[in-house]
């Protein structure tokens, strides 16, 4: 059984004068010990999806439907207390804006201690400290960070603190929402390596949200490509990136200049993301798609499985034959 299974998840932001369909009909399976990278342009609904899984969206202005099965339980149907019990021990997350991820007027250690006590209220102070020190070692931070305030750390250090924090209770599912995007190459690859080695030791499943395909290529087993709130293509990295099926994935990969080899012509995808508050008939990518046909503009393509293993799925009329 998949660890996390999304079935037809829709997320809508309800505003006074309009509704934004940030995610539509997203279905995705994540196995235990998987690492999946979700890529897509800015505004394509990646963060929204992650927040929906963790039920972190402000409920007054959002509307989530579909099923989010975690170990077979629908997270959307859990009571608040049941959900709270799962948080951080099972599901944890690291955000991009790590500088503001902790309260500026409390010490880092104290906050971590507090988070630790959420699930182990009677934990001993020294025990917690030891645990935090261990984690600091993992993310290559020195022990003194425990006694510092967030503003006394650099961006990179805070990012590591966030990661350490997310690992506090050995979560089974770890979501990294652009957690390394702001870091420079060297630091980014340093941290990613650390996380990957942790994963093997601790049995963590990772969802990684980014718009840098190359990062996914080097660190994730699977990839899911999102566009305008919809899943375009998902499958194993080595399949999808080597032989992309969806025109959007193809276009995306062509936009990256390569580091090795000949300097190929770079080509972008003309046009821009559609307005998500409008209903779009047919395929959302059709207006920018070079191969779009009349059908594409009227009928919305289903997500179709295209390999035997059953884990490579594409939502395009062009793919998988009529």
């Amino acid at each position, binding site marked *: 059984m998949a660890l996390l299974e999304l079935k037809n998840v829709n997320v809508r932001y309800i505003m006074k004068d309009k509704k934004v369909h940030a995610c539509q009909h997203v279905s995705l399976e994540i196995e235990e010990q998987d690492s999946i990278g979700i890529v897509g342009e800015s505004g394509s609904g990646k963060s929204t999806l992650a927040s929906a899984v963790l039920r972190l969206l402000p409920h007054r202005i959002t509307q989530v439907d579909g099923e989010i099965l975690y170990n077979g339980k629908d997270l959307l149907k859990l009571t608040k207390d049941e959900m709270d019990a799962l948080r951080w021990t099972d599901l944890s997350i690291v955000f991009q804006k790590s500088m*503001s991820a902790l309260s500026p007027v409390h010490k880092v250690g104290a906050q971590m201690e507090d988070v630790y006590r959420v699930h182990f209220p009677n934990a001993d102070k020294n025990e917690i400290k030891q645990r935090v020190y261990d984690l600091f070692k993992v993310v290559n931070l020195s022990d003194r960070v425990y006694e510092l305030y967030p503003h006394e750390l650099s961006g990179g250090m805070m990012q590591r603190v966030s990661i350490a924090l997310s690992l506090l209770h050995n979560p089974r599912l770890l979501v990294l929402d652009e957690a390394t995007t702001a870091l420079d190459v060297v630091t980014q690859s340093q941290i990613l390596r650390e996380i990957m080695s942790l994963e093997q030791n601790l049995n963590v499943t990772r969802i990684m949200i980014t718009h840098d395909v190359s990062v996914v290529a080097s660190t994730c087993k699977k990839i899911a490509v999102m566009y305008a709130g919809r899943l375009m293509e998902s499958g194993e990295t080595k399949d999808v990136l080597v032989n992309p099926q969806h025109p959007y994935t193809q276009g995306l990969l062509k936009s990256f200049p390569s580091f090795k080899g000949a300097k190929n012509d770079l080509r972008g995808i003309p046009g821009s993301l559609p307005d998500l508050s409008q209903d779009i008939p047919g395929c959302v990518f059709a207006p920018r798609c070079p191969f779009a046909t009349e059908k594409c503009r009227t009928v919305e393509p289903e997500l179709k499985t295209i390999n035997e293993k059953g884990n490579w799925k594409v939502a395009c009329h062009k793919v998988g034959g009529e």
Partner: protein
Amino acid sequence: MKRYIGKRALSGLLVVLLSVCFNFTLIRLAPGDPIRIMAGTDNPNEEMIEALQQKYGLDKSIPEQFVMFLGNVAKGDLGYSYISDESVIKLIGEKIGPTLALSLTAVLLSVTIGTLIGIYAARKNGSKFDQFVCSISYVFDATPGFWLGLMMILIFASTLKWFPTSGMVNLRANYKGFAYFADVCRHLVLPITTMVLTQTPYYFRIARSSVLQVMSEDFITTFKATGMKESRIFNKYVLRNAILPTVTVLGMSLAFLLSGSVLIETVFAWPGMGRLMFSSISKRDYPVLTGIYLVTSVVICIAMILVDILYGFIDPRIRYD
């Protein structure tokens, strides 16, 4: 830290000096002559006026007077009132108590009440209670204190006769000890209520909006994601962060404690600094005016430094150098 305080105090001193100099000159440039006012309009004796002017040093140029004044201040002497020939320090000292009893109590009450309601309203953001308190706070914020005071007297003293109209003690009763204290408290009810009603909205708004502001910060999402109870997030993290703006404005209002309540003191015949100043204006009692001004400026300066230090304790991002 010590160095910082020293530096702040020094620059504060400079500003106070400048401010007092400005005030000193301004008062003396204004038309009107204190000695003539003392001498009366009817039949002033010119020789006597001259003698008095000499006595108080008013025949000297303003810079000279200022230097003399500073010399005396350095010796801890703020001069003597032209009118009563009493030491200005003593005059001010007598008024500080009642002023503080009124304004400090009022400020502390308004801060407490305003902040508590503000926090509660922010938690219940959008609720009926929130909407109700918000509208009420607008109205009281817009109400001039002196007018509200008049209305209070009209309703609670003149009509209902629940409280005395004015003053600080019941002069007939001659209370001692606790009874005296209780009597002062009774007299304080109306003026303090007036001040609290007009000041609370200010703190209310600040508390409410800063709580809302903090609740939208990213770190709150982090804590929510860890499964921490909302009440704990609120009590431990939101409050500490949200209290910062309140501390700032509290500092400002503490600073204006001594001067802020002229109007209320007038309405309720409260024997405070504001009135001392007002009556000193009409009598052109320069030393008293300048003295009040100096004391107020120094108090403001100290209050601001204190707030800065307090701020440093609450907010580690502030570091002094």
